[in-house]
């Protein structure tokens, strides 16, 4: 499949980009997985197809979608935890898409990931200080006193204070929110420039979620970390991301500033997704919200602002919505690929 190269007009973030270009750029990235079903049947699953996106330094891009949409795969490709089967991944201008793992040590030091499940992602036999210090041990920081200082700093940065109280406890005696802070401290310890936060609050109690997201926002402001915030919760994306990209069946169907995508959604899938959110608002009660196929959801006619004008485009390209710089949308009439 050929398509035009990455153009700034389509993909430029709404915030001003630093002179050195985006920190991360995915250009027409695809990911095929081979499935094996015994000796006689094999198959290919297209998890991600034709995804292009950029993240500027200190920017948060929310990748919103339902399970199976490929958002976690995109996050893993952006960290080169997966090697994409097509397209390019540029980190700080360097093409990392096919670099062998043993030559990616520099990338590992500049990037990090926060996992979804704070109950299973922390080794229950390690204390908080061991968990947070582990990346330093791998980096060969052999001075125990230096490690301890940096662990204290990281714990202080995620508000696990007084740090002495938390250094030697095990995750089992902490709440979900506290464990997720440990996960974030562990991600922070190498001072990364880019963090993938994969559903960081979906398993944290409602009353602690905003605290964790505020914490991530604060780290971004203080340290200029760029985030890929992977979530199924589009409402949280409005408040904690600069831009939103909506994924459906392995492709980005709409992207733009958080307000553009939520207040003026164009793609019918985005509109169906937004309509499905039960907001605690008296005007929003007892409504019928969804059908088996989102395409059948009432009121989802072709949007008057659709840049594709109701024509089928194969391959689907993200076109900019007229009069809305930075807001682009894929053609929804294009048949879903790969599945």
């Amino acid at each position: 499949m050929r398509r035009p190269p990455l153009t700034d007009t389509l993909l430029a973030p709404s915030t001003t980009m630093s002179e050195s270009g985006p920190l991360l750029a995915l250009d027409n990235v695809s990911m095929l997985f081979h499935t094996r079903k015994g000796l006689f049947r094999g198959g290919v699953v297209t998890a991600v197809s034709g995804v292009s996106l950029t993240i500027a330094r200190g920017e948060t891009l929310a990748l919103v979608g339902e399970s199976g949409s490929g958002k976690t795969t995109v996050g893993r490709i952006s960290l080169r935890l997966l090697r994409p089967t097509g397209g390019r991944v540029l980190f700080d201008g360097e093409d990392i898409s096919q670099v062998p793992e043993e030559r990616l040590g520099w990338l590992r030091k500049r990037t990090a990931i926060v996992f979804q499940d704070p109950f299973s992602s922390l080794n229950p036999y390690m204390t908080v200080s061991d968990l947070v210090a582990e990346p330093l041990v791998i980096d060969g920081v052999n001075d125990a006193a230096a490690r301890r200082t940096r662990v204290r700093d990281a714990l202080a940065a995620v508000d696990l204070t007084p740090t002495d109280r938390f250094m030697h406890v095990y995750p089992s005696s902490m709440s979900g929110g506290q464990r997720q802070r440990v996960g974030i401290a562990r991600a922070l310890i190498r001072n990364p420039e880019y963090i993938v936060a994969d559903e960081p609050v979906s398993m944290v109690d409602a009353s602690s979620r905003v605290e964790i997201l505020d914490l991530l926002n604060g780290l971004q402001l203080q340290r200029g970390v760029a985030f890929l915030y992977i979530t199924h919760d589009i409402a949280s994306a409005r408040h904690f991301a600069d831009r939103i990209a909506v994924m459906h069946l392995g492709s980005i169907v709409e992207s733009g500033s958080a307000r553009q995508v939520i207040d003026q959604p164009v793609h019918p899938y985005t509109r169906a997704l937004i309509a499905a959110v039960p907001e605690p608002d008296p005007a929003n009660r007892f409504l019928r919200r969804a059908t088996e196929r989102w395409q059948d959801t009432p009121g989802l006619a072709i949007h008057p602002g659709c840049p594709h004008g109701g024509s089928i485009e194969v391959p689907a390209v993200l076109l900019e919505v007229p009069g809305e710089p930075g807001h682009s949308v894929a053609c929804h009439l294009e048949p879903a690929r790969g599945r």
Partner: protein
Amino acid sequence: MPLLAVDNLHLWYDAGGDRVVRAVDDVSFTIEDRGEAIGIVGESGSGKSSLALALMRLLPKNVARFDGSVRLNDRELTTLPEDQFRREIRWQHIAMVFQGAMSVLNPVLRIGDQIAEPLLLDRRFDKTAARARVHDLLQRVGLPADFASRYPHELSGGQRQRVGIATALALDPDVLILDEPTSALDVSVQAQIMNLLKDLKEDPGISMLFITHDIGLASDLCDRIAVTYAGEQMEIGPAEQVLVTPHHPYSQLLLASLPRLHSDVPPRPMPGDPPDLTALPRGCRFHPRCPYAWDACLEHPPLIPMPGGGHARCWLNDPVVAGERYQIQLRNAQAALD
């Protein structure tokens, strides 16, 4: 006479040593009519699932205290012997849909056989009648009849949760308890299940006890909402009133902490940590996290009736105590000026 009246219900657990977890502590509410839904909203550890287990009388072994009154159609249930409760009440009058659509179905049993289980128990139906009933139930929850011969692994999460609902509906219960029925589902599938629940509430008019951590979901389905915290009801009232003018600081902070889809008002984090259920604070259980807490909060507040039909467990709603607080604030302000 209400359909279901729960009064002063307690379910405490033994937590080893002399520690006790007060999972359900003095909980009271009513479901007045057929087709009424009450939402039980709370975070994990607030005791909302224990409330469901108490009503179904599916109790674990380490129960330290279980008492209070549960009246269904004016019939006291708590004094029934277990055998009679199983034969006459559980699944027949009070049924439950469990959390986690993935794990509640038996993986080696066909869907139809699972739904038929309560039908065949105690020979309530013969096999032909049970088969017809299963097809009927599948249709009612929006699944094709041939799903009866499938296995759970052939179904998606949403379809499995529909099977869970069909099973609960098998014996035409009066009250359906739903414990986080959509928590493992995508938002669009969740909306489909909620549509189904809205239909069942209308016709045949099933009353529901809807347990959730998501106040948005509760507001989508429920006529009344009870906000629980650390085993206790903090506030209960008509859904619109709880959503628009919550009287308890916990309800207010919980609503303020939700990221809103169509508003630029940033969500506010809730202060403090969730309580340790084996070592509850003295007085109001929320007072260590409450921005309005003062001396009176060391005294345990009752549920205070509010205008508009709700109740709130906060001294700020007691005219005398709130008046004293106001006088003290006034004096302090005066002293600061002097």
